[in-house]
């Protein structure tokens, strides 16, 4: 009963995606979504990247979203296709990445019957998505898709899943354009002016202030990052960034103290500990950042700017909260500051900086280089020096290499640093880099990897080759799950239980088997050469660097310790008395 102004569900779906500005879908087909793939085949507005595992489709969409500020889009089949996507969704939920994930589902009349490839994916993903929908009527499909994109990108961004029973995408129904959809979901973006005035007043009177800035500023977009930079510079206050916030404030600015937290710098952590005013913009007091809560910035008043009221007073009680989008709030703060002709307490701020410079002089990221073994920190520094002129996008996997990258790379631009912070998902980096390269075909995209993490989604090498995505993967091969080994060395008496992967593939041959280029450096003097060679090749490359297996990440705040109780290096005596894992309840 084809009717001239009705469309099939699959047609409606693709039309809605186009109207939402989608250009790329990361996906993998299967029985339940074949009608959608059939429609994809007939059109050329939407490009499809065929991944090798659905988890990678979600990470790729995350990479695409984080590097562009747009909503990433995923399409997978029912049952195993959908469950394979769960880790990616949980990752996006933890790091506030806007995604829409479309999953196939068995036809509505079979739902609940344990049908072939049926999984209750809305039930499974309820706690790890921002919201999810099961569409039961083709006439609600367009509306649901438009609303899903609105929810994914508004307020605190996050992943939204739409479950699509097969009959719904085959039935005919009416299309509805985005302009017709009125969503009741309207998070607050403007901050309360009274609170903003109070904040400005507190900032003007501070004697030992610090800006503690997080991923929320990146989420908000480049305008927020510019406003933040402007405001920090107006005050001349020190600024530290979380792992997720790197790039929100220029890494080369002298006001930047480096990352804070478990593997943050001495100057950032000590300044947090001793500050009298903490100005938190878009950061969520994560336990990797605060350390022991009893000892967290004990002498401080705290201001917290966040779009999500549930982030406020969750872990740390604050003195003043401003709820709203940080770009709007920063803009208002600057206006009020100028209107009131505020000035900082220059004398106090100068004394404060004198103290901070003393902490900086510790030079906590220094390491003893070797001319025999490649030190991982050295490898990262060389990557930075040799690639910075091309403003590369850097992705990472999870582990020691991730922390060294965060410590030793400097980001002057936002959206160029992509890492899995909240969930800490090994296997994130390669597919994320794939998504970044899709969005920025001309840019240099590098995944800094560990030899263990990279094996979690190594199959995506084939996707890179098929889609001609010249991602560069640098594996810092220390033979171990280094981050696990580090904790076992420092906390579990050196019992390296199952953290040594005795067998690894030959990564050079592996790259070649996939049709990519493989390179290897075994000595420090080979490092520059392989980096230059990797940059010169216009194809996907794996560079394996054999690094010193015994190196650990320092400084480190041991679990259960406070910011002023950092362990600075292997010789530091305070490590003889680390907190037990139980006190801190922090995980590797």
């Amino acid at each position, binding site marked *: 009963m084809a009717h001239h102004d009705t469309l099939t569900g699959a047609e409606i779906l693709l039309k809605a995606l186009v109207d939402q500005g989608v250009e790329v879908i990361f996906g993998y087909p299967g029985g339940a979504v074949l009608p959608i793939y059939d429609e994809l085949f007939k059109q050329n507005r939407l490009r499809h990247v065929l991944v090798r595992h659905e988890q990678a489709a979600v990470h790729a969409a995350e990479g695409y979203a984080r590097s562009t500020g747009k909503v990433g889009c995923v399409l997978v089949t029912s049952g195993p296709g959908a469950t394979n996507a769960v880790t990616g969704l949980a990752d996006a939920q933890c790091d506030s990445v806007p995604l829409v994930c479309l999953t196939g589902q068995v036809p509505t009349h079979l739902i609940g019957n344990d049908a072939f490839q049926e999984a209750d994916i809305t039930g499974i993903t309820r706690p790890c998505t921002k919201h999810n929908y099961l569409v039961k009527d083709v006439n609600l499909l367009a509306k649901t898709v438009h609303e899903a994109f609105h929810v994914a990108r508004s307020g605190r961004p996050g992943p939204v899943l739409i479950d699509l029973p097969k009959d719904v995408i085959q039935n005919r129904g009416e299309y509805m354009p985005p302009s017709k959809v009125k969503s009741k979901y309207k998070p607050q973006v403007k901050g309360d002016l009274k609170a903003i005035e109070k904040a400005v007043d507190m900032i003007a009177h501070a004697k030992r202030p610090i800006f503690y800035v997080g991923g929320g500023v990146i989420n908000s977009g480049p305008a927020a990052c510019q406003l933040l930079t402007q405001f920090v510079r107006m005050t001349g206050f020190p600024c530290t960034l979380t792992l997720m916030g790197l790039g929100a404030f220029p890494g080369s600015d002298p006001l930047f103290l480096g990352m804070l937290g478990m593997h943050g710098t001495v100057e950032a952590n000590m300044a947090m500990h001793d500050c009298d005013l903490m100005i938190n913009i878009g950061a969520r007091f994560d336990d990797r950042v605060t350390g022991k809560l009893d000892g967290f910035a004990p002498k401080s008043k705290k201001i917290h700017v966040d779009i*999500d*009221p*549930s982030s406020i007073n*969750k872990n740390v009680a604050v003195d003043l909260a401003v709820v709203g989008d940080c770009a709007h709030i920063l803009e208002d703060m600057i206006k009020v500051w100028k209107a009131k002709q505020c000035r900082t307490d220059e004398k106090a701020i100068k004394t404060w900086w004198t103290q901070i410079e003393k902490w900086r002089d510790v030079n906590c990221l220094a390491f003893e280089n070797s001319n025999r073994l490649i030190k991982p920190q050295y490898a990262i520094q060389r990557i930075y020096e040799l690639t910075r002129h091309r403003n590369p996008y850097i992705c990472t996997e999870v582990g020691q290499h991730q922390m060294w990258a965060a410590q030793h790379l400097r980001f002057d631009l936002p959206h160029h640093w992509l890492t899995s912070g909240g969930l800490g998902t090994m296997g994130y980096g390669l597919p994320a880099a794939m998504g970044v390269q899709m969005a920025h075909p001309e840019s240099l995209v590098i995944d800094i990897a560990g030899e263990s993490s990279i094996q979690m989604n190594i199959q995506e090498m084939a996707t890179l080759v098929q889609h001609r995505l010249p991602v560069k993967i640098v594996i810092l091969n220390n033979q171990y799950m280094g981050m696990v080994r580090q904790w076992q060395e420092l906390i579990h008496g050196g019992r390296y239980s199952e953290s040594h992967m005795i067998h690894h593939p030959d990564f050079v041959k592996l790259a070649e088997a996939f049709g990519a280029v493989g390179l290897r450096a075994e000595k420090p003097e080979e490092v520059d050469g392989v980096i230059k060679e990797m940059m010169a090749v216009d194809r996907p490359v794996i560079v394996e660097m054999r690094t010193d297996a015994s190196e650990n990440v320092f400084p480190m705040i041991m679990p259960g310790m406070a910011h002023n109780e950092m362990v600075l290096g292997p010789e530091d005596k305070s490590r003889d008395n680390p907190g037990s894992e139980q006190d801190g309840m922090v995980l590797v």
Partner: protein
Amino acid sequence: MNKPVEEINRHTIAVLVDNESGVLARVVGLFSGRGYNIESLTVAEVDPRENLSRITIVTSGTAMIIEQIKNQLRRLVPVHKVHDLTIEGPHVSRELALIKVNATGEKRVESLRIADIFRARAIDSTNESFVFEVVGATEKVDAFVKLMEPLGLTDVSRTGVVAIARGPNPI
């Protein structure tokens, strides 16, 4: 560690939600997933035209936890209003219970006498049993159930708490 012992209080929270499938699972999942406790939860549609249901939740926690609970509820997309009746002013709350007592002789008479004091009604009766209907604050229902225990209490069904603010205004 000598942290100040934070006071734990009971709060009654009224939540207005879209009446759609899965909404109750979202609310309940939030409580179990984040380790908050639910002492009572009731739900029913209250506005068929706007398709809204009202959930009344009785929960307990420190001030910081209660604030978290309310903010987490507000984050759910189908949740439109969250009101903490306990702190927003005077409110009334009621529970209805159906209570089965199996008794004969003196105990049967005593159960009727107590029911009378609690203004409970017998809504079903056989020669050896009663079903009482009692309405009131949770404490009143608790007290009634306790008194029925020695008299042959065999089955209890309670609605959980419903609550509403006093005065002319809606939530």
